[in-house]
Protein backbone atom coordinates (compact mmCIF):
# COMPACT_ATOMS: atom_id res chain seq x y z
CA UNK A 1 0.00 0.00 0.00
CA UNK A 2 2.88 2.34 0.59
CA UNK A 3 3.08 4.16 -2.70
CA UNK A 4 6.66 5.17 -3.00
CA UNK A 5 7.88 6.81 -6.12
CA UNK A 6 11.33 8.22 -6.13
CA UNK A 7 12.85 9.79 -9.17
CA UNK A 8 16.27 8.51 -8.17
CA UNK A 9 15.35 4.86 -7.96
CA UNK A 10 13.26 5.07 -11.13
CA UNK A 11 16.28 6.36 -13.02
CA UNK A 12 18.45 3.66 -11.47
CA UNK A 13 16.11 0.92 -12.66
CA UNK A 14 15.75 2.55 -16.06
CA UNK A 15 19.50 2.56 -16.59
CA UNK A 16 19.67 -1.14 -15.77
CA UNK A 17 17.20 -1.93 -18.55
CA UNK A 18 19.43 -2.60 -21.57
CA UNK A 19 16.77 -2.05 -24.23
CA UNK A 20 15.65 1.24 -22.67
CA UNK A 21 19.24 2.34 -22.19
CA UNK A 22 20.12 1.55 -25.80
CA UNK A 23 17.01 3.40 -27.01
CA UNK A 24 17.84 6.40 -24.86
CA UNK A 25 21.41 6.44 -26.21
CA UNK A 26 20.11 6.25 -29.77
CA UNK A 27 17.67 9.12 -29.19
CA UNK A 28 20.36 11.26 -27.57
CA UNK A 29 22.56 10.60 -30.60
CA UNK A 30 19.78 11.65 -32.99
CA UNK A 31 19.08 14.74 -30.91
CA UNK A 32 22.78 15.69 -30.85
CA UNK A 33 22.99 15.19 -34.63
CA UNK A 34 20.00 17.50 -35.02
CA UNK A 35 21.36 20.19 -32.71
CA UNK A 36 24.92 20.14 -34.08
CA UNK A 37 23.96 19.44 -37.69
CA UNK A 38 25.78 22.50 -39.11
CA UNK A 39 29.05 21.34 -37.52
CA UNK A 40 28.70 17.70 -38.51
CA UNK A 41 28.15 17.95 -42.24
CA UNK A 42 29.98 19.78 -45.01
CA UNK A 43 26.61 20.18 -46.76
CA UNK A 44 24.91 22.43 -44.19
CA UNK A 45 23.57 24.77 -46.88
CA UNK A 46 21.97 21.82 -48.70
CA UNK A 47 20.58 20.60 -45.40
CA UNK A 48 18.84 23.94 -45.07
CA UNK A 49 17.38 23.59 -48.55
CA UNK A 50 19.83 25.13 -51.01
CA UNK A 51 19.98 23.17 -54.28
CA UNK A 52 23.21 21.88 -55.81
CA UNK A 53 22.00 20.88 -59.25
CA UNK A 54 25.38 19.54 -60.32
CA UNK A 55 25.03 16.70 -57.81
CA UNK A 56 21.45 15.62 -58.29
CA UNK A 57 20.25 12.02 -57.85
CA UNK A 58 23.59 10.63 -56.74
CA UNK A 59 23.22 7.12 -55.38
CA UNK A 60 24.76 6.35 -51.96
CA UNK A 61 28.55 6.64 -51.98
CA UNK A 62 31.40 7.52 -49.61
CA UNK A 63 30.84 11.19 -50.47
CA UNK A 64 27.07 11.00 -49.97
CA UNK A 65 26.35 7.92 -47.79
CA UNK A 66 22.57 8.25 -48.23
CA UNK A 67 22.73 9.70 -51.74
CA UNK A 68 21.37 13.05 -52.92
CA UNK A 69 17.90 14.15 -53.95
CA UNK A 70 16.52 15.70 -57.15
CA UNK A 71 18.01 19.08 -56.25
CA UNK A 72 21.40 17.60 -55.43
CA UNK A 73 21.01 17.96 -51.68
CA UNK A 74 23.00 15.57 -49.48
CA UNK A 75 20.50 13.22 -47.78
CA UNK A 76 22.57 12.90 -44.58
CA UNK A 77 22.49 16.66 -44.12
CA UNK A 78 18.78 16.76 -44.97
CA UNK A 79 18.07 14.03 -42.43
CA UNK A 80 20.01 15.82 -39.70
CA UNK A 81 18.30 19.13 -40.34
CA UNK A 82 14.99 17.33 -40.77
CA UNK A 83 15.48 15.69 -37.38
CA UNK A 84 15.26 19.14 -35.80
CA UNK A 85 11.70 19.48 -36.99
CA UNK A 86 10.57 15.88 -36.70
CA UNK A 87 11.96 15.33 -33.21
CA UNK A 88 10.88 18.70 -31.83
CA UNK A 89 7.45 18.22 -33.38
CA UNK A 90 7.00 14.89 -31.59
CA UNK A 91 8.18 16.27 -28.26
CA UNK A 92 6.28 19.57 -28.47
CA UNK A 93 3.02 17.88 -29.50
CA UNK A 94 3.17 15.68 -26.43
CA UNK A 95 4.25 18.53 -24.14
CA UNK A 96 1.45 20.76 -25.44
CA UNK A 97 -1.10 17.95 -25.15
CA UNK A 98 -0.05 17.26 -21.55
CA UNK A 99 -0.02 20.97 -20.72
CA UNK A 100 -3.62 21.29 -21.88
CA UNK A 101 -5.00 17.88 -20.96
CA UNK A 102 -3.46 17.18 -17.55
CA UNK A 103 -4.74 20.31 -15.74
CA UNK A 104 -8.21 20.00 -17.28
CA UNK A 105 -8.48 16.32 -16.40
CA UNK A 106 -7.20 16.90 -12.88
CA UNK A 107 -9.64 19.75 -12.25
CA UNK A 108 -12.53 17.73 -13.70
CA UNK A 109 -11.68 14.71 -11.60
CA UNK A 110 -11.08 16.64 -8.40
CA UNK A 111 -14.06 18.96 -8.49
CA UNK A 112 -16.50 16.49 -10.04
CA UNK A 113 -20.12 17.57 -10.53
CA UNK A 114 -21.02 19.87 -13.38
CA UNK A 115 -17.41 20.99 -13.96
CA UNK A 116 -16.52 17.37 -14.64
CA UNK A 117 -19.55 16.92 -16.92
CA UNK A 118 -18.77 20.00 -19.01
CA UNK A 119 -15.03 19.31 -19.36
CA UNK A 120 -15.51 15.64 -20.14
CA UNK A 121 -18.23 16.27 -22.73
CA UNK A 122 -15.84 18.70 -24.47
CA UNK A 123 -13.14 16.04 -24.54
CA UNK A 124 -15.73 13.56 -25.85
CA UNK A 125 -16.43 15.89 -28.76
CA UNK A 126 -12.75 15.85 -29.67
CA UNK A 127 -12.52 12.11 -29.22
CA UNK A 128 -15.55 11.58 -31.45
CA UNK A 129 -13.50 12.40 -34.55
CA UNK A 130 -10.85 10.10 -35.99
CA UNK A 131 -7.70 11.83 -34.69
CA UNK A 132 -5.76 11.90 -37.95
CA UNK A 133 -8.71 13.28 -39.92
CA UNK A 134 -9.32 15.94 -37.28
CA UNK A 135 -5.65 16.92 -37.34
CA UNK A 136 -5.75 17.13 -41.16
CA UNK A 137 -8.88 19.28 -41.02
CA UNK A 138 -7.44 21.65 -38.43
CA UNK A 139 -4.08 21.89 -40.18
CA UNK A 140 -5.79 22.56 -43.51
CA UNK A 141 -8.01 25.21 -41.93
CA UNK A 142 -5.09 26.96 -40.22
CA UNK A 143 -2.86 26.77 -43.28
CA UNK A 144 0.09 24.51 -43.93
CA UNK A 145 3.07 25.20 -41.69
CA UNK A 146 5.18 23.52 -39.04
CA UNK A 147 3.59 25.43 -36.16
CA UNK A 148 0.03 24.87 -37.40
CA UNK A 149 0.65 21.16 -37.84
CA UNK A 150 1.93 21.09 -34.27
CA UNK A 151 -1.19 22.88 -33.02
CA UNK A 152 -3.45 20.58 -35.05
CA UNK A 153 -1.92 17.39 -33.71
CA UNK A 154 -1.83 18.67 -30.12
CA UNK A 155 -5.51 19.59 -30.44
CA UNK A 156 -6.39 15.99 -31.23
CA UNK A 157 -4.10 14.60 -28.56
CA UNK A 158 -4.88 16.46 -25.32
CA UNK A 159 -8.21 14.69 -24.62
CA UNK A 160 -6.33 11.43 -23.99
CA UNK A 161 -4.23 13.09 -21.31
CA UNK A 162 -7.32 14.77 -19.86
CA UNK A 163 -8.90 11.35 -19.50
CA UNK A 164 -5.77 9.79 -18.04
CA UNK A 165 -5.32 12.64 -15.56
CA UNK A 166 -9.00 12.50 -14.61
CA UNK A 167 -9.02 8.77 -13.94
CA UNK A 168 -5.84 9.02 -11.89
CA UNK A 169 -7.27 11.95 -9.94
CA UNK A 170 -10.51 10.11 -9.27
CA UNK A 171 -8.70 7.25 -7.62
CA UNK A 172 -6.44 9.63 -5.71
CA UNK A 173 -9.26 11.85 -4.52
CA UNK A 174 -10.59 9.09 -2.29
CA UNK A 175 -7.23 8.59 -0.60
CA UNK A 176 -7.15 9.33 3.09
CA UNK A 177 -4.32 11.85 2.75
CA UNK A 178 -6.40 14.00 0.43
CA UNK A 179 -9.23 13.82 2.94
CA UNK A 180 -6.75 14.71 5.70
CA UNK A 181 -5.60 17.75 3.71
CA UNK A 182 -9.19 18.86 3.23
CA UNK A 183 -9.91 18.47 6.92
CA UNK A 184 -6.89 20.64 7.72
CA UNK A 185 -8.44 23.31 5.54
CA UNK A 186 -5.89 23.27 2.72
CA UNK A 187 -7.27 25.13 -0.29
CA UNK A 188 -8.37 23.05 -3.28
CA UNK A 189 -5.80 24.75 -5.48
CA UNK A 190 -2.99 23.74 -3.10
CA UNK A 191 -4.32 20.19 -2.75
CA UNK A 192 -4.26 19.82 -6.53
CA UNK A 193 -0.78 21.30 -6.87
CA UNK A 194 0.89 19.65 -3.90
CA UNK A 195 -0.95 16.40 -3.33
CA UNK A 196 -2.51 15.36 -6.61
CA UNK A 197 -0.28 16.61 -9.42
CA UNK A 198 3.00 15.04 -8.24
CA UNK A 199 1.24 11.72 -7.74
CA UNK A 200 -0.38 11.53 -11.16
CA UNK A 201 2.66 12.68 -13.14
CA UNK A 202 4.28 9.24 -13.30
CA UNK A 203 1.64 7.58 -15.52
CA UNK A 204 1.38 10.76 -17.58
CA UNK A 205 5.12 10.91 -18.21
CA UNK A 206 5.14 7.22 -19.13
CA UNK A 207 2.28 7.69 -21.58
CA UNK A 208 3.96 10.83 -22.92
CA UNK A 209 7.21 9.01 -23.65
CA UNK A 210 5.32 6.27 -25.47
CA UNK A 211 3.39 8.90 -27.44
CA UNK A 212 6.35 10.88 -28.76
CA UNK A 213 7.09 8.19 -31.33
CA UNK A 214 3.49 8.10 -32.50
CA UNK A 215 3.39 11.90 -32.64
CA UNK A 216 6.46 11.88 -34.89
CA UNK A 217 4.68 9.41 -37.16
CA UNK A 218 1.53 11.52 -37.33
CA UNK A 219 3.55 14.68 -37.92
CA UNK A 220 5.39 12.93 -40.74
CA UNK A 221 2.00 11.93 -42.12
CA UNK A 222 0.83 15.54 -42.20
CA UNK A 223 4.09 16.63 -43.83
CA UNK A 224 3.76 13.79 -46.35
CA UNK A 225 0.47 15.20 -47.60
CA UNK A 226 1.89 18.71 -47.60
CA UNK A 227 0.25 20.08 -44.49
CA UNK A 228 3.39 20.34 -42.37
CA UNK A 229 6.84 21.72 -42.98
CA UNK A 230 7.07 23.71 -46.21
CA UNK A 231 9.92 23.84 -48.76
CA UNK A 232 12.75 24.69 -48.82
CA UNK A 233 12.92 23.21 -45.30
CA UNK A 234 12.40 19.54 -44.78
CA UNK A 235 11.41 17.08 -42.17
CA UNK A 236 11.39 13.32 -42.50
CA UNK A 237 7.79 13.23 -43.74
CA UNK A 238 8.56 15.77 -46.47
CA UNK A 239 11.62 13.77 -47.53
CA UNK A 240 9.58 10.56 -47.91
CA UNK A 241 6.98 12.49 -49.86
CA UNK A 242 9.59 14.07 -52.15
CA UNK A 243 11.19 10.73 -52.84
CA UNK A 244 8.09 8.64 -53.39
CA UNK A 245 7.79 9.42 -57.14
CA UNK A 246 11.29 8.14 -57.79
CA UNK A 247 11.18 5.04 -55.65
CA UNK A 248 10.05 2.66 -58.39
CA UNK A 249 12.35 4.18 -60.95
CA UNK A 250 15.32 2.94 -58.94
CA UNK A 251 16.13 5.92 -56.73
CA UNK A 252 15.25 3.92 -53.64
CA UNK A 253 17.47 5.89 -51.29
CA UNK A 254 15.31 9.02 -51.37
CA UNK A 255 12.40 7.65 -49.28
CA UNK A 256 14.11 4.71 -47.63
CA UNK A 257 16.51 6.58 -45.32
CA UNK A 258 13.99 9.07 -43.88
CA UNK A 259 11.58 6.13 -43.52
CA UNK A 260 14.16 4.21 -41.54
CA UNK A 261 14.87 7.31 -39.43
CA UNK A 262 11.20 7.57 -38.50
CA UNK A 263 10.98 3.84 -37.90
CA UNK A 264 13.96 3.64 -35.56
CA UNK A 265 13.12 6.85 -33.72
CA UNK A 266 9.50 5.91 -33.12
CA UNK A 267 10.57 2.46 -32.00
CA UNK A 268 13.20 3.88 -29.66
CA UNK A 269 10.61 6.11 -28.02
CA UNK A 270 8.35 3.11 -27.57
CA UNK A 271 11.08 1.02 -25.97
CA UNK A 272 12.09 3.95 -23.78
CA UNK A 273 8.49 4.59 -22.71
CA UNK A 274 8.08 0.93 -21.89
CA UNK A 275 11.29 1.03 -19.89
CA UNK A 276 10.12 4.09 -17.95
CA UNK A 277 6.80 2.39 -17.27
CA UNK A 278 8.49 -0.67 -15.82
CA UNK A 279 11.09 1.33 -13.91
CA UNK A 280 8.51 3.66 -12.35
CA UNK A 281 6.32 0.82 -11.12
CA UNK A 282 7.95 -1.16 -8.33
CA UNK A 283 5.64 -4.09 -8.98
CA UNK A 284 6.98 -4.53 -12.51
CA UNK A 285 10.65 -4.30 -11.57
CA UNK A 286 12.56 -7.47 -12.01
CA UNK A 287 15.87 -7.78 -10.29
CA UNK A 288 18.44 -8.47 -12.94
CA UNK A 289 21.87 -8.88 -11.48
Amino acid at each position, binding site marked *: *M*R*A*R*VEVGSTLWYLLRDRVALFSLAFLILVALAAVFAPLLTPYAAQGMGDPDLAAKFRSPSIEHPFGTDGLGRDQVARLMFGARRSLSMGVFVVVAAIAIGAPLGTIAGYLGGWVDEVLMRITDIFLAFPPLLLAIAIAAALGASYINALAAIAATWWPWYARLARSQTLSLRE*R*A*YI*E*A*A*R*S*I*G*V*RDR*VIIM*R*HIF*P*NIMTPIVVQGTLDVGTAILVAAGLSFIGLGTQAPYADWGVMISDGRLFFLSGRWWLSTFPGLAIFFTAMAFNFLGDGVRVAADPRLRRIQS
Partner: protein
Amino acid sequence: MTEPLLRVQGLSMTFSRKSGFFSRVGEELRALNDLSFTINAGETLGIVGESGCGKSTLARCLLRLLTPTAGQIYFAGQDLLALPDETMRRMRQRMQIVLQNPFSSLSPRLNGFQLIAEPLRTHTTMSRKEMMDEVAALLAEVGLPSEFMSRHPHQLSGGQAQRIALARALALNPDFVILDEPTSALDVSVQAQIINLLIRLQKQRALTYLFITHDLGVIQHIGDRIAVMYLGKIVEETSSERIFANPQHPYTQALLSSTPLPDPSRSRQRIILPGTVPSAVDPPSGCSFHPRCAHVMDQCRTLYPAARQTSVGHHVSCHLYENGA
Protein backbone atom coordinates in the same frame (compact mmCIF):
# COMPACT_ATOMS: atom_id res chain seq x y z
CA MET B 1 -25.48 25.12 32.27
CA THR B 2 -22.76 26.07 29.84
CA GLU B 3 -23.10 25.39 26.16
CA PRO B 4 -21.36 22.14 25.19
CA LEU B 5 -18.47 22.43 22.74
CA LEU B 6 -20.26 20.26 20.22
CA ARG B 7 -23.98 19.77 19.98
CA VAL B 8 -25.40 17.55 17.27
CA GLN B 9 -29.12 17.54 16.60
CA GLY B 10 -31.05 15.15 14.41
CA LEU B 11 -28.05 14.46 12.19
CA SER B 12 -28.87 12.23 9.23
CA MET B 13 -26.80 11.24 6.26
CA THR B 14 -28.41 9.41 3.41
CA PHE B 15 -26.37 8.28 0.44
CA SER B 16 -28.46 7.80 -2.63
CA ARG B 17 -27.35 5.76 -5.55
CA LYS B 18 -29.18 5.92 -8.80
CA SER B 19 -29.59 2.47 -10.18
CA GLY B 20 -29.30 3.65 -13.77
CA PHE B 21 -29.31 6.66 -16.01
CA PHE B 22 -32.93 6.30 -17.06
CA SER B 23 -34.36 4.94 -13.88
CA ARG B 24 -35.90 7.27 -11.36
CA VAL B 25 -35.86 4.92 -8.44
CA GLY B 26 -32.56 4.80 -6.62
CA GLU B 27 -31.34 2.98 -3.59
CA GLU B 28 -30.94 4.96 -0.43
CA LEU B 29 -28.42 4.11 2.23
CA ARG B 30 -29.15 5.69 5.58
CA ALA B 31 -25.70 5.84 7.10
CA LEU B 32 -26.75 8.14 9.92
CA ASN B 33 -30.29 8.22 11.17
CA ASP B 34 -31.35 11.11 13.37
CA LEU B 35 -28.36 11.26 15.72
CA SER B 36 -28.31 13.68 18.60
CA PHE B 37 -25.58 14.05 21.20
CA THR B 38 -23.39 16.61 22.88
CA ILE B 39 -19.75 16.74 23.88
CA ASN B 40 -18.63 19.10 26.63
CA ALA B 41 -15.32 20.88 26.49
CA GLY B 42 -12.50 18.75 27.85
CA GLU B 43 -14.34 15.45 27.80
CA THR B 44 -14.02 12.37 25.63
CA LEU B 45 -17.02 10.83 23.97
CA GLY B 46 -16.41 7.33 22.72
CA ILE B 47 -18.44 6.13 19.77
CA VAL B 48 -18.52 2.36 19.61
CA GLY B 49 -20.02 0.13 16.97
CA GLU B 50 -19.35 -2.53 14.40
CA SER B 51 -17.91 -1.64 11.03
CA GLY B 52 -20.59 -0.28 8.74
CA CYS B 53 -22.65 1.28 11.53
CA GLY B 54 -21.84 4.82 10.37
CA LYS B 55 -19.04 5.80 12.77
CA SER B 56 -16.71 7.13 10.11
CA THR B 57 -19.53 8.81 8.22
CA LEU B 58 -20.32 10.63 11.46
CA ALA B 59 -16.70 11.86 11.71
CA ARG B 60 -16.77 13.11 8.12
CA CYS B 61 -20.09 14.86 8.63
CA LEU B 62 -18.89 16.62 11.77
CA LEU B 63 -15.93 18.05 9.83
CA ARG B 64 -18.16 18.84 6.88
CA LEU B 65 -16.10 16.62 4.61
CA LEU B 66 -19.50 15.19 3.79
CA THR B 67 -22.62 17.32 3.84
CA PRO B 68 -25.29 15.71 6.00
CA THR B 69 -28.76 15.45 4.51
CA ALA B 70 -30.46 16.70 7.68
CA GLY B 71 -29.71 18.00 11.12
CA GLN B 72 -27.54 20.63 12.77
CA ILE B 73 -24.03 20.62 14.13
CA TYR B 74 -23.25 23.38 16.60
CA PHE B 75 -19.56 23.81 17.32
CA ALA B 76 -18.72 26.42 19.95
CA GLY B 77 -22.21 27.82 19.44
CA GLN B 78 -21.95 28.15 15.65
CA ASP B 79 -24.00 26.15 13.19
CA LEU B 80 -21.26 24.56 11.08
CA LEU B 81 -23.55 23.55 8.25
CA ALA B 82 -24.65 27.16 7.78
CA LEU B 83 -21.13 28.60 7.61
CA PRO B 84 -19.86 29.91 4.28
CA ASP B 85 -17.04 27.81 2.80
CA GLU B 86 -14.23 30.22 3.65
CA THR B 87 -15.41 30.65 7.27
CA MET B 88 -15.63 26.87 7.54
CA ARG B 89 -12.12 26.53 6.13
CA ARG B 90 -10.81 28.79 8.90
CA MET B 91 -12.94 26.99 11.46
CA ARG B 92 -11.04 23.81 10.61
CA GLN B 93 -8.13 25.14 12.66
CA ARG B 94 -10.16 24.41 15.76
CA MET B 95 -11.25 20.88 14.83
CA GLN B 96 -8.91 18.20 13.58
CA ILE B 97 -9.04 14.51 12.76
CA VAL B 98 -6.64 11.61 13.13
CA LEU B 99 -7.50 8.76 10.81
CA GLN B 100 -7.16 5.05 11.25
CA ASN B 101 -4.27 4.19 8.98
CA PRO B 102 -1.41 6.70 9.19
CA PHE B 103 0.23 5.31 6.04
CA SER B 104 -2.75 6.28 3.96
CA SER B 105 -3.46 9.55 5.76
CA LEU B 106 0.10 10.84 5.27
CA SER B 107 1.03 11.87 1.74
CA PRO B 108 3.79 9.45 0.68
CA ARG B 109 5.87 12.14 -1.02
CA LEU B 110 6.18 14.52 1.89
CA ASN B 111 8.63 14.27 4.78
CA GLY B 112 7.86 14.72 8.44
CA PHE B 113 8.49 18.44 8.42
CA GLN B 114 6.32 19.06 5.36
CA LEU B 115 3.55 16.91 6.77
CA ILE B 116 3.40 18.59 10.16
CA ALA B 117 3.97 22.06 8.73
CA GLU B 118 1.11 21.77 6.26
CA PRO B 119 -1.55 23.11 8.64
CA LEU B 120 0.85 25.90 9.67
CA ARG B 121 1.43 26.86 6.04
CA THR B 122 -2.29 26.79 5.43
CA HIS B 123 -3.45 28.91 8.31
CA THR B 124 -0.51 30.98 9.55
CA THR B 125 2.12 33.27 8.08
CA MET B 126 5.05 31.75 9.94
CA SER B 127 8.51 31.95 8.46
CA ARG B 128 10.31 28.72 7.66
CA LYS B 129 12.49 29.12 10.73
CA GLU B 130 9.47 29.54 12.99
CA MET B 131 7.87 26.52 11.40
CA MET B 132 11.00 24.42 12.00
CA ASP B 133 10.93 25.36 15.69
CA GLU B 134 7.22 24.70 15.92
CA VAL B 135 7.48 21.32 14.18
CA ALA B 136 10.39 20.31 16.44
CA ALA B 137 8.30 21.23 19.49
CA LEU B 138 5.33 19.26 18.19
CA LEU B 139 7.52 16.24 17.48
CA ALA B 140 8.88 16.40 21.02
CA GLU B 141 5.34 16.60 22.33
CA VAL B 142 4.37 13.37 20.60
CA GLY B 143 7.59 11.73 21.71
CA LEU B 144 9.69 11.80 18.55
CA PRO B 145 13.16 13.32 18.10
CA SER B 146 13.54 16.09 15.54
CA GLU B 147 15.32 13.75 13.08
CA PHE B 148 11.85 12.65 12.03
CA MET B 149 11.46 15.94 10.16
CA SER B 150 13.38 14.47 7.25
CA ARG B 151 11.77 11.01 7.27
CA HIS B 152 9.18 9.97 4.74
CA PRO B 153 6.14 7.90 5.75
CA HIS B 154 7.55 4.68 4.30
CA GLN B 155 10.52 5.00 6.64
CA LEU B 156 8.33 5.02 9.72
CA SER B 157 6.78 2.31 11.87
CA GLY B 158 3.03 2.38 12.38
CA GLY B 159 3.32 3.97 15.80
CA GLN B 160 5.78 6.61 14.59
CA ALA B 161 3.58 7.45 11.61
CA GLN B 162 0.53 7.80 13.83
CA ARG B 163 2.52 10.14 16.10
CA ILE B 164 3.34 12.29 13.07
CA ALA B 165 -0.35 12.34 12.15
CA LEU B 166 -1.14 13.35 15.71
CA ALA B 167 1.48 16.13 15.67
CA ARG B 168 -0.09 17.40 12.45
CA ALA B 169 -3.53 17.42 14.06
CA LEU B 170 -2.19 19.36 17.05
CA ALA B 171 -0.18 21.89 15.03
CA LEU B 172 -2.87 24.55 15.08
CA ASN B 173 -3.74 23.98 18.73
CA PRO B 174 -7.30 22.78 18.09
CA ASP B 175 -10.04 22.53 20.71
CA PHE B 176 -11.57 19.40 19.32
CA VAL B 177 -9.94 16.31 17.83
CA ILE B 178 -11.80 13.46 16.19
CA LEU B 179 -9.91 10.20 16.56
CA ASP B 180 -11.25 7.79 13.96
CA GLU B 181 -9.99 4.38 15.08
CA PRO B 182 -6.55 5.87 15.75
CA THR B 183 -5.13 2.63 17.14
CA SER B 184 -6.81 -0.14 15.18
CA ALA B 185 -4.11 -0.27 12.52
CA LEU B 186 -1.36 -0.59 15.13
CA ASP B 187 0.21 -3.45 17.05
CA VAL B 188 -1.29 -4.06 20.47
CA SER B 189 1.85 -2.93 22.31
CA VAL B 190 1.92 0.30 20.34
CA GLN B 191 -1.81 0.87 20.88
CA ALA B 192 -1.29 1.34 24.61
CA GLN B 193 1.50 3.86 24.04
CA ILE B 194 -0.65 5.90 21.70
CA ILE B 195 -3.61 5.79 24.09
CA ASN B 196 -1.42 7.00 26.94
CA LEU B 197 -0.04 9.74 24.72
CA LEU B 198 -3.58 10.80 23.81
CA ILE B 199 -4.57 10.95 27.48
CA ARG B 200 -1.47 13.01 28.35
CA LEU B 201 -2.04 15.43 25.47
CA GLN B 202 -5.67 15.86 26.44
CA LYS B 203 -4.65 16.89 29.96
CA GLN B 204 -1.88 19.21 28.81
CA ARG B 205 -3.84 20.92 26.06
CA ALA B 206 -7.37 20.67 27.46
CA LEU B 207 -8.51 18.85 24.34
CA THR B 208 -11.96 17.53 23.63
CA TYR B 209 -12.02 14.14 21.93
CA LEU B 210 -14.50 12.20 19.89
CA PHE B 211 -13.00 8.74 19.94
CA ILE B 212 -14.37 6.35 17.36
CA THR B 213 -13.59 2.69 17.76
CA HIS B 214 -14.99 -0.80 17.48
CA ASP B 215 -12.90 -1.92 20.42
CA LEU B 216 -14.48 -1.44 23.82
CA GLY B 217 -11.26 -2.41 25.53
CA VAL B 218 -9.53 0.63 24.05
CA ILE B 219 -12.27 3.09 24.89
CA GLN B 220 -12.44 1.91 28.50
CA HIS B 221 -9.19 3.71 29.23
CA ILE B 222 -9.94 7.01 27.63
CA GLY B 223 -13.70 7.57 27.31
CA ASP B 224 -15.67 9.69 29.78
CA ARG B 225 -18.94 8.86 28.10
CA ILE B 226 -19.70 6.22 25.53
CA ALA B 227 -22.32 6.10 22.83
CA VAL B 228 -23.05 2.76 21.20
CA MET B 229 -24.09 2.91 17.57
CA TYR B 230 -25.99 0.32 15.60
CA LEU B 231 -27.02 0.88 11.98
CA GLY B 232 -26.74 4.66 12.01
CA LYS B 233 -28.45 5.17 15.37
CA ILE B 234 -27.23 5.64 18.91
CA VAL B 235 -28.81 2.83 20.92
CA GLU B 236 -27.28 3.53 24.30
CA GLU B 237 -25.34 6.40 25.78
CA THR B 238 -23.94 6.75 29.27
CA SER B 239 -20.77 7.17 31.29
CA SER B 240 -17.92 4.81 30.63
CA GLU B 241 -18.10 3.22 34.11
CA ARG B 242 -21.77 2.54 33.80
CA ILE B 243 -21.62 1.01 30.36
CA PHE B 244 -19.21 -1.63 31.61
CA ALA B 245 -20.97 -2.12 34.95
CA ASN B 246 -24.53 -2.05 33.72
CA PRO B 247 -24.98 -2.38 29.97
CA GLN B 248 -28.68 -2.15 29.24
CA HIS B 249 -29.27 -2.42 25.53
CA PRO B 250 -29.08 -6.05 24.34
CA TYR B 251 -26.68 -4.97 21.61
CA THR B 252 -24.33 -3.34 24.12
CA GLN B 253 -24.47 -6.47 26.24
CA ALA B 254 -23.51 -8.60 23.26
CA LEU B 255 -20.71 -6.19 22.30
CA LEU B 256 -19.31 -6.23 25.84
CA SER B 257 -19.43 -9.98 26.09
CA SER B 258 -17.25 -10.22 22.99
CA THR B 259 -14.46 -8.13 24.48
CA PRO B 260 -11.69 -10.42 25.70
CA LEU B 261 -10.86 -10.18 29.38
CA PRO B 262 -7.21 -9.69 30.27
CA ASP B 263 -7.44 -12.30 33.02
CA PRO B 264 -7.42 -15.84 31.61
CA SER B 265 -8.85 -17.41 34.76
CA ARG B 266 -12.04 -15.46 34.40
CA SER B 267 -14.38 -16.14 31.57
CA ARG B 268 -17.61 -14.57 30.64
CA GLN B 269 -20.71 -15.92 29.04
CA ARG B 270 -20.46 -14.83 25.44
CA ILE B 271 -23.60 -13.68 23.74
CA ILE B 272 -23.44 -14.82 20.16
CA LEU B 273 -25.56 -12.64 17.93
CA PRO B 274 -27.37 -14.57 15.21
CA GLY B 275 -27.00 -13.32 11.65
CA THR B 276 -25.02 -10.35 10.44
CA VAL B 277 -25.50 -6.60 10.49
CA PRO B 278 -28.46 -5.88 8.20
CA SER B 279 -27.88 -3.70 5.18
CA ALA B 280 -28.40 0.02 5.75
CA VAL B 281 -29.97 0.13 2.29
CA ASP B 282 -32.84 -2.03 3.51
CA PRO B 283 -32.95 -1.74 7.31
CA PRO B 284 -35.35 -3.91 9.32
CA SER B 285 -38.67 -2.40 10.34
CA GLY B 286 -39.17 -1.13 13.88
CA CYS B 287 -36.07 -1.50 16.01
CA SER B 288 -33.25 -2.20 13.57
CA PHE B 289 -31.70 -4.63 16.04
CA HIS B 290 -34.82 -6.82 16.41
CA PRO B 291 -33.83 -9.62 13.97
CA ARG B 292 -30.76 -10.38 16.10
CA CYS B 293 -32.12 -9.62 19.54
CA ALA B 294 -32.72 -12.39 22.11
CA HIS B 295 -35.37 -10.32 23.89
CA VAL B 296 -37.39 -9.43 20.83
CA MET B 297 -41.04 -8.52 21.48
CA ASP B 298 -43.89 -7.86 19.11
CA GLN B 299 -43.67 -4.08 19.23
CA CYS B 300 -39.93 -4.24 18.36
CA ARG B 301 -40.88 -5.35 14.85
CA THR B 302 -43.02 -2.31 14.15
CA LEU B 303 -41.93 0.60 16.30
CA TYR B 304 -38.49 2.10 16.80
CA PRO B 305 -38.03 2.64 20.54
CA ALA B 306 -37.49 6.24 21.59
CA ALA B 307 -34.44 7.08 23.67
CA ARG B 308 -35.33 7.02 27.28
CA GLN B 309 -33.47 7.91 30.43
CA THR B 310 -33.25 4.91 32.71
CA SER B 311 -31.16 6.67 35.32
CA VAL B 312 -29.36 10.01 35.41
CA GLY B 313 -27.19 10.29 32.32
CA HIS B 314 -28.07 6.86 30.99
CA HIS B 315 -30.10 6.81 27.79
CA VAL B 316 -31.27 3.64 26.08
CA SER B 317 -33.39 3.08 23.00
CA CYS B 318 -35.03 -0.23 23.80
CA HIS B 319 -38.59 -1.34 24.44
CA LEU B 320 -37.40 -3.44 27.38
CA TYR B 321 -37.01 -0.30 29.45
CA GLU B 322 -40.23 1.43 28.49
CA ASN B 323 -42.09 0.87 31.74
CA GLY B 324 -39.53 2.56 33.89
CA ALA B 325 -37.76 -0.73 34.54
